[in-house]
């Protein structure tokens, strides 16, 4: 009878469907080991992807090299002038750095990110469509990035230390990153000023295409204005305080109880090629307050 059932295609289809549904539900549980099964796929796909991506980039570079030739000549002249100016600023910066180090020792000031290990990674793949919109980077458990119950995620920043997103899952050689624009992303933020208001920044499906994020949970008396810079507040523990997020581009005061704003993230995720994963050291206390799947009041 079992053989007859296996020969029935409808039965096989139902069986496969149920298996997949089971995987979907199991995968929704935090800390599940399901993502381990993606490791062998990554091992096969990653080299192919690197070759295709490399070839595509080389072809693109060839054509852009021709068109950019004239521009480069003009830019070179301007850059030479800038170099002279920057050399002066570097000298000034070196003096300021020495003074900062002296003050830091004197006042026991701690750098925001000094207890974090920074792992560099290249972007392997981008979104497949509007619903499959996380991206993959080439750093996984092999590189020391592992998702555990203690560390359910890590902050991801770009080369300018602007917030890009958070690590969603890892396998041996790669990690998935949920970008800041994704509707499942949420982070506690504060206005970058002394005693700046703490707000909640999250992705929203309607704003994603415009490259914007939603700001809500704005305190009643908080003064927010267009052009204010938002940085991570550090509340929630996942993201260290002080990572630049972006600037406020609009504010909606129509409802006094539910004021909202939109923020333009600094990081241009569509043009991102390399990013950095911030793994907290042993001294850093973490909890999962920022990890809400749906936008919630600031964690």
């Amino acid at each position, binding site marked *: 009878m079992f053989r007859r059932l296996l020969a029935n*295609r409808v039965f096989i*289809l139902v069986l*496969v*469907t149920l298996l*997949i*549904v089971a*995987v*979907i539900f199991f*995968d*929704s549980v935090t800390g599940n080991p*399901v*993502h381990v*099964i*993606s490791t062998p*796929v*990554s091992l*096969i*796909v990653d080299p*192919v*992807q690197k070759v*295709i*991506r490399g070839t*595509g980039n080389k072809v693109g570079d060839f054509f852009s090299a021709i068109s950019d030739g004239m521009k480069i000549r003009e830019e070179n002249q301007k850059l030479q002038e800038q170099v002279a100016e920057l050399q002066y600023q570097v000298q000034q910066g070196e003096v300021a750095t020495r003074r900062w180090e002296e003050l830091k020792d004197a006042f026991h000031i701690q750098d925001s990110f000094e207890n974090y290990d920074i792992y560099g990674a290249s972007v392997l*793949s*981008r*979104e*497949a*469509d*509007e*619903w*499959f*919109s*996380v*991206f*993959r980077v080439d750093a996984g458990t092999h590189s020391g990035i592992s998702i555990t119950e203690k560390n359910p995620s890590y902050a991801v920043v770009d080369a300018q230390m602007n917030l890009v997103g958070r690590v*969603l899952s890892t396998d041996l050689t790669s990690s*998935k990153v*949920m970008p800041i624009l994704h*509707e*499942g992303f949420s982070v506690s933020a504060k206005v970058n000023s002394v005693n700046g208001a703490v707000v909640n920044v999250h*992705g*929203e*499906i*309607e704003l994603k*295409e415009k490259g914007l994020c939603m700001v809500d949970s704005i305190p009643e008396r908080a003064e927010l204005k267009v052009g204010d810079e938002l940085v991570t507040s550090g509340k929630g523990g996942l993201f260290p305080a002080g990572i630049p997020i972006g600037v406020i581009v609009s504010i909606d005061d129509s409802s006094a109880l539910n004021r909202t704003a939109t923020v333009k993230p600094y990081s241009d995720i*569509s043009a991102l090629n390399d990013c950095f994963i911030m793994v907290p050291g042993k001294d850093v206390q973490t909890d999962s307050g920022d990890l809400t*799947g*749906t*936008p919630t009041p600031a964690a």
Partner: protein
Amino acid sequence: MTQRGIKLSRNDRIRQLALYAVYILILSTVQVSFPQYLSFRGQTADLMLVFVILVGYFFGPLDGAVVGLITGFLRDVLSGTTLGIGALLLMYAGLFGSLILSGKFHRRAVLGALQVFLITLGYKVIGHMIRYFFPLIMEHDSVYLSFRQVILDSILPQLAVNLVASVPLILLLTYLGPYRRGYIRQDEDQRSGMEELWRTK
């Protein structure tokens, strides 16, 4: 995957599996590596979906479902938040690709684009409905796109780019395989014979 009654030789079987593997790897990689070159009004040409629909349309339900399952799993691994959703969606896309139109129109290559249009439309409508009605499962709040945005910014651009993407893929599947060209013709002949047999009964 010889669901259509024709026994494949060993070499043909190897060719079939190898070509499917190459197609799946290349198309999925291209889609997630260069979305900026495949986009129109914010929607990326869904090469994986179009490929799966066409495989189902040209080569039947077993090819469609199995290729859809594998391609969907790859989609989940490459850019999905939850493992399994892409596999489920593409498996059924491949299956429906083999059921609608294909029998009536004898899997004519020209109508492959119409099949892509219909299944893409179904995929997008179902996707939007799921995301509208099950916001907690799909990780976003109750605020959703307006009907106008769904039509103008999501469904129509996606249909347009998928239709464009279907042209080279139809040519690829028709002229390069996974099966030798004679396979489809041989199968059509066999089926028309079977249809006559059916009619005489």
